[in-house]
């Protein structure tokens, strides 16, 4: 039996972004234009700024979408910024985002890319 291979990626970060339900797709699109490979979105419920906005708080959906995107460290700042701007995070209630450093990650990496990297 041949030995099975596993590729471990390093220098990766995870961007997590919490926005109102329905807004995630637009932000993911911006991230992908910035070079992100893909995104995972799950649903949640959030409180905080909604209560502080008074009557305007009603315009903010309590249900949230949580976007997580793994990015390479080198593209992290650029994508982080693109997502910030796409989500209009400089407006209260529009959401927040953060980056966590990942120790390692693993997924499918195309064969030809691997060969190229190993030969270098």
């Amino acid at each position: 039996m041949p030995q099975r291979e596993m590729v471990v990626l390093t220098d990766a970060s995870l961007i997590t972004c919490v926005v109102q339900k329905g807004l995630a797709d637009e932000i993911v699109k911006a991230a992908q234009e910035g070079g992100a490979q893909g995104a995972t979105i799950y649903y949640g419920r959030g409180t905080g700024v909604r209560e502080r906005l008074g009557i305007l708080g009603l315009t903010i959906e309590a249900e949230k979408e949580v976007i997580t995107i793994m990015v390479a460290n080198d593209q992290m700042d650029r994508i982080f910024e693109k997502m910030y701007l796409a989500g209009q995070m400089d407006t209260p209630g529009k959401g927040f985002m953060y980056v966590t450093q990942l120790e390692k990650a693993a997924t499918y990496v195309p064969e030809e890319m691997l060969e190229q990297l190993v030969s270098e």
Partner: protein
Amino acid sequence: MAREIRFGKYLKEAAAHHDTVSYNDLIPEVQRDAEGRELPVEVTGIKLRAVDVYRLLQPYVTIRVMEQVKAVVPLALYLMLFQMIILRQGVNDSVIITAGLFAVIIGLMFFMEGLKIGLMPFGSSLGTTLPAKSSLPVVLTIAFILGIGVTFAEPAIGALKAAGQVVKVETAPYLYALLNDWSEQLVLVVGIGVGTAAVLGTIRLLYGWSLKPFIYATLTPTILLTVYIQQNEELSKMLGLAWDCGAVTTGPVTVPLVLALGIGIASAAGKGSSSLSGFGIVTLASLFPILGVELLAIYVFYATTPEAIIAAASVGSAEVAAWYTQTPYAEVIGGIRAIVPLVIFLVIVMKLVLREKIHNAGIISYGIALAVIGMVIFSLGLTYGLAMLGNQAGGFIPAAFSEVSSVEGSPLYFFSLGILIALFFAWALGFGATLAEPALNALGITVEQLTNGAFKKSTLMYAVSFGVGCGIAIGVAKIVFDIQIAYLLVGFYAIAIVLTYFSSEEFVNIAWDSAGVTTGPVTVPLVLSMGLGFANAANAIEGFGILSMASIGPIIAVQATGLWINMKVTRKRKKLQPELEAAEI
């Protein structure tokens, strides 16, 4: 030697300006009272820039406006274009109608939003806590009263009152009386029907009974009364209205509120997990009001005489209308009367029965205010937008095949072609309006999950829309050829019952419920007033009955499709059976 710069650092400098702030600097300082105990952190408001207010409001408002625009504009455009292109008639009072349609859009937007933040929280907390805290009789009593309350709050109910102004007292005195002098009782009877349906539907969910016997048991007296009413010429003019009332009841207020309570009760008893929970109440809520209105019609028939009604009507019209019956005031009073009693009832139940505090009272009262304002604007738009447009378009349609005094050169087409055009118009109206109904989309998704994909979402949507289209076309044909509606009703419901007998429980539930889903607050007034305008122009006595045909259409269409799918599945299984057995060996 080349200098090394991190790419990320380079980008940071090249793109938007970044400031780095420590989060530690942002947190509020801990406040202590005189004894040195920590005080809870006070939540402070946030100052908003103008652009922030815009950014918050813009998507919020756009989404909600667009929702209603999608419901109103295509239908209205279809009616107007048909009138202009096929019937070659300009739209009269187009400014008033446009303003009216605008009011409908804004009114519905306010109303739905108010409903969501003002009334629905009551519904969901009633549904979850009431069954656990009180005994079954109390719960059922509340369900019954709630059924009446939501009927008054249903926006489409106003369409019935608007329709009353068009009915001619001379030709159909009892119908006129029912819609004018007795209109409050009419709505009350419809409400009692919905309340009864809520009670029975809940009991059914609780014990997991089949829907079929309920359908048989409700339809039998309803059909028998229909036959009885048909015997008398004066009485029979009220039949169309009675059956239409069933379609009016199941709107955006009734369905979620009554369903929330019903499902809550069933799940508190551990019976809510069935995949069919929630179905059936809508069916009963559209059948019982018919029975109620039939009984009221018979009562009115024995209580007064046509002469008395006509006399009263002529006296009434001679008097100067009191201020509270004039346009803006009447709508405002109507809007308040529709919603406030329901709210008071819900608050009393919350306080006295559940003994629960009402959270976010400020936001809830804001929601209720929105709902009332929305209702008022919507009723104005209903009268001047939807009813006027429907009436007008309906009034011009007969010009396609017969002589209408207001249309020059009518009939525009020779008789058979003209009738075909009119029927096709009606069919396409029903088909298109139903397909666009968001509630149908939701039902389609549920059905696809229920049947493990055998009944596709699109199949259901097309089956229901096809059924509604055919129903509306038949309803128009009824007015053109002056067919007695009783024959149509008895015939179609007989077919529906036969299909019900052969269908599986799931499809019976889906089919009978789909009838109620299709009649929203835009379709009902439009179709109702179109029928009345059409009947007036075609010199028919009354123009009701189109909606009732639109309700029975999908029931037959969906059940037939369900049977056909079942047949396909069993045939496939039979075909695969030998192979499966071979595989097992």
